[in-house]
């Protein structure tokens, strides 16, 4: 039942806003729907935490601790982002970058995007998961090109082509999975249901599954933004409206990684952990290192943080690749803190760019003077994302690194070097933007900074103290991932 | 030995050094005059100079801080203390354990720092010049001195001067190459620290070359007298250190009154020789250019370190 609500609310919101998205109160409606979704997801979470996994609608939907925590996270960040986008899009409108029609598109697509992500998380049918993933691409591609500038069109085009092609590979992988499954489960719908596959995963044909995993990894990995499949990501993040960058970084990447991990679990059943694990660790490490070196060359602030997202997705992929309770725990925790921190950063970045009138980092100076809250938000957020204690990102990185040190000690030097370079690059850029003399000016609407500091507060709290129920929850999920 | 006697010895030695120091200066000057076949002044001349200076009325530069006026007393006190530490007449004195060779070097450093500060207090160009040169000499001479003493300390396994002198004095005679190195280094340090040729020339006020005189240029009367006296004690102390380290024979045990006359006799003899030697060196050598002074002293430093190493390599 909760599942229906969780999925139904954003869908309804999408329809409503498709009709009324151009009204003045559309942003409020957007926020309200997102909040309702969030509330429903809380209900769902409590239910699952209370009495275990749920199967709904003749097993088409499946909720276990792993995805319910992502559902809650997605709904929460979706809500806060909606709050942030209220003043942000108003200001954009007054700067004349978007007109009402596009605002309407924006709002309804925003809800639809939330819907597709939740669908992808909740669906038990691997094929439906794929469909939802593609739907997520389709619903965001027009948002990336919302401003209709040449750059945004180019970014959207690349995003569309690369992700569609990647997703196509994933479909092939899914077909192979089905191909392997139907020999065990027989033809028909049930052989695409993840739960069923999970039961018989030990009997599935190894060679087929290895091929299938390659296709799935390349496919979903494109959306995760693994190097060298990442090229759409910085463009899309830089050129789309900031709320979209926030949800892309904070949520979509997570969802894609979720899909990878789900398939990994199946494949591990047949092939053992080493095969998928080594692949994921390789991709993760490559992403971390390459992204770290890219960071130092950025001029556009959103681009830079997009690369930082690639780096962190690399860390998570590495963590899940290593496997084991601690690493998986760390990976989940890193998912949480990264999406919270990164979206908070994008909130501040959005307002900072609006104040300075440019996304070029050389043009943004001395935010501390014009608005201390934005300044502190940006500097604390960056420090958090760079893995500075006492923020939670450090916690997960600590666990990942320490696990890596005695399980794959060869990898740790790369990770650490990459972290050091990333620190130099990002903080060297952020500091002059925050401190010193300013160039920015006041804004017509007061920026929405509650989301920023709410996120940062949660991240800080997670750095100091992980509540027992949350830990238990993560542990269950980690156990599922294995 | 009973402490009363020891303390008496201590006091006696200190007073003896303070009183005898100007005599040594006079003796050195006299020898030098002989060697340069000038008509020699009286050996007692330094005493008369001091007396004269004490009687005069001091002229103090305007803008002098209290530091300027207290420094002469501090200098005098430091040197007097040094005279108390060095076993001049006897070993095992009660004050000896309170300060070993490192502390001794520390005392000299304290004096140097204060005199340099006082020199900079007035704010004339000469004061700064003197202070700078003095510290330049110091930063090389001090470690060289320390290394020399360490060589002896390694041989005797102690940094207490009295212990060193006991061990060196009561051993059967043996040649220590390390000590030879140390002796040369010590001699060079002695010349430098006491503002002697070839580093400095106490007899001139030539601003291109003067070091010590430039520092005390502003002093007059009783302050000057105290400084001159302190300088004399310093020379005396250095010479006695040298004697204690390299030719310690004949020194008395603390509280042993019978050995005292012999100790005094040998000491006077050694000092007479040393003073003559100093005068000879000062006559034979020419004053170095100031910028060569660091090289002179760094070679002293290296010699001292070499001595220490040879101790490990030979006696090793």
């Amino acid at each position, binding site marked *: 039942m909760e599942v229906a609500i969780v999925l139904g609310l954003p869908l309804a919101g999408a329809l409503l806003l498709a009709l009324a998205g151009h009204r003045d109160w559309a942003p409020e409606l957007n926020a309200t729907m997102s909040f309702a979704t969030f509330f429903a997801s809380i209900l769902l979470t409590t239910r699952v935490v209370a009495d275990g996994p749920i199967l709904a609608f003749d097993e088409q939907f499946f909720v276990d601790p792993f995805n319910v925590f992502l559902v809650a996270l997605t709904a929460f960040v979706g809500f806060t982002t909606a709050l942030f986008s209220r003043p942000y899009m108003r200001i954009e409108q007054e700067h004349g970058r978007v007109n009402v029609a596009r605002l309407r598109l924006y709002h309804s697509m925003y809800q639809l995007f939330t819907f597709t992500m939740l669908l992808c998380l909740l669906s038990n049918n691997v094929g439906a998961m794929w469909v939802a993933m593609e739907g997520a691409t389709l619903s965001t591609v027009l948002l990336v090109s919302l401003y209709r500038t040449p750059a945004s069109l180019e970014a959207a085009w690349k995003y569309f082509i690369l992700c569609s092609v990647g997703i196509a590979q994933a479909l092939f992988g899914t077909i192979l999975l089905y191909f392997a499954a139907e020999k065990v489960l027989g033809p028909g719908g049930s052989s695409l249901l993840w739960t069923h596959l999970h039961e018989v995963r030990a009997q599935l044909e190894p060679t087929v599954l290895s091929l299938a995993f390659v296709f799935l990894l390349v496919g979903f990995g494109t959306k995760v933004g693994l190097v060298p499949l990442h090229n759409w990501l910085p463009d899309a993040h830089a050129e789309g409206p900031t709320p979209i960058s926030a949800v892309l970084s904070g949520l979509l990447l997570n969802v894609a990684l979720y899909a990878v991990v789900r398939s990994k679990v199946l494949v591990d059943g047949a092939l053992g952990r080493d095969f998928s694990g080594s692949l994921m660790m390789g991709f993760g490490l490559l992403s971390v290192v390459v992204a770290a070196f890219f960071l130092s060359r950025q001029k556009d602030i959103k681009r830079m943080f997009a690369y930082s997202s690639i780096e962190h997705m690399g860390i998570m992929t590495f963590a899940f690749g290593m496997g084991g309770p601690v690493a998986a725990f760390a990976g989940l925790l890193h998912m949480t803190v990264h999406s919270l921190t990164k979206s908070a950063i994008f909130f501040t970045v959005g307002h900072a760019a609006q104040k300075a009138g440019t996304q070029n980092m050389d043009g943004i100076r001395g935010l501390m003077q014009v608005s201390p809250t934005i300044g502190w938000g940006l500097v604390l957020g960056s420090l958090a994302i760079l893995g500075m204690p006492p923020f939670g990102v450090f916690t997960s990185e600590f666990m990942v690194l320490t696990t890596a040190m005695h399980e794959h000690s060869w990898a740790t030097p790369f990770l650490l070097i990459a972290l050091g370079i990333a620190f130099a690059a990002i903080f060297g850029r952020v500091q002059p933007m925050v*401190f010193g003399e300013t160039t920015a000016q006041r804004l017509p609407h007061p920026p929405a900074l509650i989301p920023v500091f709410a996120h940062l507060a949660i991240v800080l709290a997670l750095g100091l103290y992980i509540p027992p129920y949350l830990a238990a929850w993560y542990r269950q999920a980690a156990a599922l991932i294995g | 030995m009973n402490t009363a006697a020891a303390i008496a010895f201590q006091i006696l030695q200190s007073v003896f050094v303070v009183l005898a120091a100007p005599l040594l200066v006079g003796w050195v000057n006299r020898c030098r005059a002989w060697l340069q076949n000038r008509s020699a002044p009286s050996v007692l001349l330094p005493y008369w100079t001091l007396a004269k200076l004490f009687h005069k009325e001091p*002229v103090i530069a305007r803008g002098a801080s209290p530091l300027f006026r207290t420094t002469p007393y501090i200098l005098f006190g430091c040197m007097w203390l040094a005279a108390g530490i060095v076993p001049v007449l006897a070993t095992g004195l009660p004050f000896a354990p309170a300060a070993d060779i490192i502390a001794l070097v520390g005392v000299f450093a304290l004096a140097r720092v204060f005199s340099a500060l006082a020199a900079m207090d007035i704010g004339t160009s000469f004061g700064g010049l003197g202070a700078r040169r003095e510290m330049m000499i110091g930063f090389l001479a001090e470690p060289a001195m320390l290394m020399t003493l360490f060589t002896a300390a390694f041989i005797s396994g102690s940094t*207490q001067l009295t212990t060193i002198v006991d061990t060196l004095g009561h051993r059967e005679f043996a040649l220590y190459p390390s000590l030879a190195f140390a002796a040369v280094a010590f001699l060079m340090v002695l010349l430098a620290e006491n503002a002697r040729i070839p580093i400095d020339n106490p007899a001139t006020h030539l601003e291109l070359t003067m070091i010590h005189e430039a520092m005390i240029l502003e002093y007059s009367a009783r302050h000057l007298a105290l400084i001159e006296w302190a300088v004399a004690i310093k020379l005396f102390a250095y010479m006695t250190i040298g004697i204690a380290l390299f030719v310690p024979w004949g020194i008395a045990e603390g509280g042993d009154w019978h050995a005292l006359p012999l100790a005094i006799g040998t000491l006077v003899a050694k000092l007479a020789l040393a003073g003559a030697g100093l005068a000879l060196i000062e006559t034979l050598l020419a004053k170095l250019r100031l910028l060569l002074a660091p090289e002179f002293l760094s070679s002293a430093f290296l010699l001292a370190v070499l001595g220490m190493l040879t101790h*490990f390599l030979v006696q090793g």
Partner: protein
Amino acid sequence: MSALHAALSPAGGALALAVLWLAIAVACLIPSRNAAFARRFAFPLGAAAGIGVAFVGLQAVWLPAQTLTLPLGLPDLPFHLRVDALAAFFLMLLGSVSAGVSVYAAGYFREEASGRLALIGCQYHVFLASMAFVLLADDAYLFMLAWETMALSSYFLVITDHKQPSIRSAGFLYLLIAHLGAIAVLLCFGVLHGGRGDYSFDALRAAHLQRGWATVAFLLAFFGFGAKAGILPLHAWLPEAHPAAPSPVSALMSGVMIKTAIYGMVRVIFDLIGSVRWEWGLVVLVIGAGTTLFGVLYALMQHDLKRLLAYHSVENIGIILLGLGMGMVFVGFGHGAAGALGLIAALYHTLNHAVFKGLLFLGAGSILHSSGLRNLNDMGGLIHRMPKTAFYFLIGALAISALPPLNGFVSEWLTFQAALQATILQNGIVRSLLPLFAATLALAGALTAMCFVKVYGVAFLGRAREPAHPSPLPHAGDAGGMERYGMAWLAAGCFLLGLFPSSFLLVLNRVASRLTGHGLSEQALSASGWLWLVPTSAEQASYSPLVFLVMIVAVTLLAFFVVRRVYHGRARFADPWDCGYPEQTSRMQDTADAFGQPIRHVFGPLYRMERTLPGPGEATPRYTLKIEDRHWYWLYLPVARAAEYVSSKIALLQQGRISIYLLYSFITLIALLVFVR
């Protein structure tokens, strides 16, 4: 009841006080009239907490190690806290020094604007608390947490005046090097862990490493913590960041923060790794000697007072490392007593340096605060304008110059004594090496004396120079009351540590024996009472600063009174003798740069100098001299260039052609398929 008991135990007490600091930090942010609050309430209370911490530490040294576990942190790794002798000693250091600095700060920040002061107060107390937690931490996670929080809070304090670009770059450099060091430390913990158990220090102690890994761990710890301590060649941030910070913060950073790095080294090397090897000691000694000489030689070239003091911090870290290295060599060869002596010398110098360097930075702060000057070449004659500050500064200067009977001398004396133990070593080479390090120490000591003659003579003595850029506060008076109390507290510390070393020797002996299992020899302990300091045995070496002081004061006074009684006390005042030059302007005095000239002449090759000589025709001839650190050109810039090069090559991945991007995906796919087949 048990909670009360826990709170009364040293661990609980220290924890409570650290939390109190945090509470003050939060309270500072409460907006209502927070300037007055911070000035009148926050800083004094912080000072009181500091004294409390010092007492807790002093008490805990003599107690067995106490542990405490908080239900925070990672789910399977809660915060472990532990107060053993070592931590207790450093708590004592932290508390006592920070107390003085906090009192001073209450006066120093009196004219700060409200908002800024709130931030400063918050960050300042977070800084103190994080240092306390670094000392209390007993697991890797909490340690790293506190360690990085310390770096972060101090970074924000450093860039308080972030309007100046130089200060921003200094802050960035500082945080970057600190972070890299932290990464090395983290890696070190990972190596120590060895794959079993959790990351509590007990588990790390228990883990057995084979030689190779132990050496790796040592190197990581040494350079990781060294980055924070400012050892060669990772010192570059220190002379930039310490001057940039407000003076009380500089005092804390130089006095206490870099000591936490020493704490980390000792903790990891002697406690966590356990089996110390003499080769490691040699590494420490070589680096330490290099750091010592480098620090003092560059300090002699400075004319910015706080920068000069920062370079002296580098030097003193080197001296501490010399003692530490000697201790490691002796322990490595199995000479427990001598090793303890070296360790004790190092720790004692750590404490001493904390006290007198704190004092000196506070003095520099008072000068800056009341006259607005920080360039020595603009000062002069300050002793007339601020006599009290001049007095305290003189004490600090004498102490750092290692002159008896103050505290700097004692620790260097102990280090020398440790070096003189070399005779007991079997290995001939090492035995003949130790005296060389002693020689380095001697040289450094003399150079320090020269440097502080320069500082004191140029800044406080002589006549006021007409500054090149006139001071913003021309007619400033002496330091205010609170500032003076702060300085007096630390100056008293200089005397206390200098005059009663043997009592501290016993404390440190306890620390060393708890760490290495060996203390000083029995005869040493029996011979050294409150009056006599005897490190090994009475006939080998002894020192009694109190007798020393009494004697020197006695003879000086004696001389004074005799002279005054026998002769008249008259004095006449006149212009200084002008040597025949009609006018003597104050510009004829030696400047700080001029004073360093002999050093430039002797050690020329060490520096990277850029001289600009005035041409013959210039109306206002000016001779300028720029001295730079060669390490920039040897180490830092090349590394930066290398990273730049690599990233420029990697950037070729992204040339914007969608076909190429598709090709990447295609090739990846094919490659993986091939890999699978």
